[in-house]
């Protein structure tokens, strides 16, 4: 049995669509099989809530009189980049405060913006005949901005490896603090709830797919940077209107001695068009393999110390070289579940319709090391 997008959308409009979360779908596929599941279920909602450094917001400030062509700018002392015309700026989540360092970064700034807190702007201009103003200082809120468009180059990793540390030193990494001599294991992602893990062949997720982004509606605009489907590590580039988002799903974060970043909530609805897609959305934590890498080896290609999966990692401890090691997730499963529930509510109560992608995500990616030349090649 197969269904089309328009058949599912008609059901949603009539309030008759069967919408369930990816957690629930895992049990249904296990109990009844993919064929029955495809008949009974129309949409599966997914969710993930984790730190996604490759994120940021384009803002347009509006023009002053006399106008300014911004050369450098700071918002709450966090330097933002000037990627285009006079008063367009981009807030990168990992940017850090000139005065507070990594304790306040672009991620915290985005959280404060979406919370409607006043933000201090300081900018320097080039001073041209058409843009004579050379500096400005003022206070703005999200409402004062013409646009605040979140565009994230790399979000929603399909899965991510886990980290541990064989060395004798405490390491401070983007995977958190790694205690010496295999003192802990950290991992990230939502496992069986993760959007791309529920559609690993990209049969429904593609350019134009309408999604949940930071608590508001957003869209997939393509594959993300470092998209690597061959290794089960696909990524997404997404876009959404910050003015429609919520601080509940956008939270600034600081990883000690590493940097600032942003926790982002992403959820994707998956239409169950056929039994194959039903089978994919039946994926469980146990079916998503994860390698535990040794960050004690300070190289690009870190050795694998153990191959495991989300189910084992969620047990709380894991055996490594004869030692019981505590495991801890850097992402929030609780909020990921809330996102899948919220997306289900959008469809059931607010009539959110599903979109057929304009183009599927590429099944081939490109994630090669940087080409190095001459004497620089040696580290």
């Amino acid at each position, binding site marked *: 049995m197969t269904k089309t997008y328009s058949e599912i959308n008609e059901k949603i409009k009539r309030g008759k669509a069967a919408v369930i979360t990816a957690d629930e779908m895992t049990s249904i596929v296990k109990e009844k099989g993919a064929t029955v599941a495809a008949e009974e279920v129309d949409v599966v909602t997914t969710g993930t809530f984790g730190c996604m450094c490759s994120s940021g917001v384009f803002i347009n400030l509006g023009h002053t009189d006399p106008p300014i062509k911004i050369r450098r700018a700071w918002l709450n002392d966090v330097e933002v980049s000037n990627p285009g015309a006079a008063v367009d700026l981009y807030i990168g989540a990992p940017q850090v405060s000139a005065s507070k360092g990594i304790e306040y970064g672009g991620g915290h700034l985005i959280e404060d913006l979406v919370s409607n807190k006043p933000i201090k702007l300081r900018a320097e201009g080039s001073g041209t005949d058409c843009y004579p103003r050379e500096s400005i200082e003022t206070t703005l809120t999200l409402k004062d901005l013409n646009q605040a468009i979140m565009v994230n180059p790399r979000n929603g990793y399909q899965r991510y490896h886990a980290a541990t540390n064989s060395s004798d030193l405490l390491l401070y990494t983007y995977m958190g603090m790694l205690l010496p001599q295999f003192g802990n*294991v950290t991992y990230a992602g939502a496992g069986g709830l993760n959007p791309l893990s529920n559609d690993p062949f990209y049969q429904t997720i593609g350019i134009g797919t309408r999604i949940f982004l930071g608590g508001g509606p957003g869209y997939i605009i393509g594959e993300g940077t470092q998209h690597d489907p061959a290794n089960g590590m696909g990524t997404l580039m997404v876009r959404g209107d910050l003015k429609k988002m919520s601080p509940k799903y956008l939270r600034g974060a600081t990883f000690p001695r590493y940097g600032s970043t942003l926790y982002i909530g992403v959820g994707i609805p998956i239409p169950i068009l056929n039994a194959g897609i039903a089978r994919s959305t039946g994926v469980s934590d146990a079916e998503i393999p994860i390698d535990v890498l040794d960050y004690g080896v300070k190289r690009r290609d870190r050795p694998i110390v153990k191959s495991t999966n989300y189910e084992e990692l*969620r047990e709380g401890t894991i055996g490594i070289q004869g030692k019981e090691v*505590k*495991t*801890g997730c850097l992402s*929030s499963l*609780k909020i990921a579940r809330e996102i899948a529930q919220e997306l289900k509510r959008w469809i059931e109560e607010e009539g959110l319709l599903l979109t057929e992608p304009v183009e599927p995500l590429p099944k081939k990616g490109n994630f090669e090391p940087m080409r190095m030349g001459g004497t620089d090649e040696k580290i």
Partner: protein
Amino acid sequence: MKKYKLAYSKGIATEPVISKVSIETKALINILSGSITERGGELIVSIEGDDQQIRSAISSIRGERVEVQPIKKTLELDQNRCVDCGYCGTVCPTSAIIVHADGSIEILDEGCVGCGLCVTACPRRALSIKEA
């Protein structure tokens, strides 16, 4: 169970103070964390027993020229900042942070030695040590 910080000066660090006091007073002294070299150092311990045993254990430890200070620090969680990831549980040396299946945490006051590792580790700055 009460927790104490024991400060060892140079000279006393090589003496079996804890064993001596434990045998003498029958109080159970559990070393929770610490670092001592021949130059001295400190231990965080919990002392179990009735009030009389605890009092005499403390006075015996002091009699061995080791300073004893009760620990009154408590770990506090700001629920508004916490995102329920549960990562703090992996860095806690005394397993005083219980992580539930959904990532939400529970702090066991009696187990916490106030080392502050979780405070540093928390990406959301949701944990803090308060002096009681």
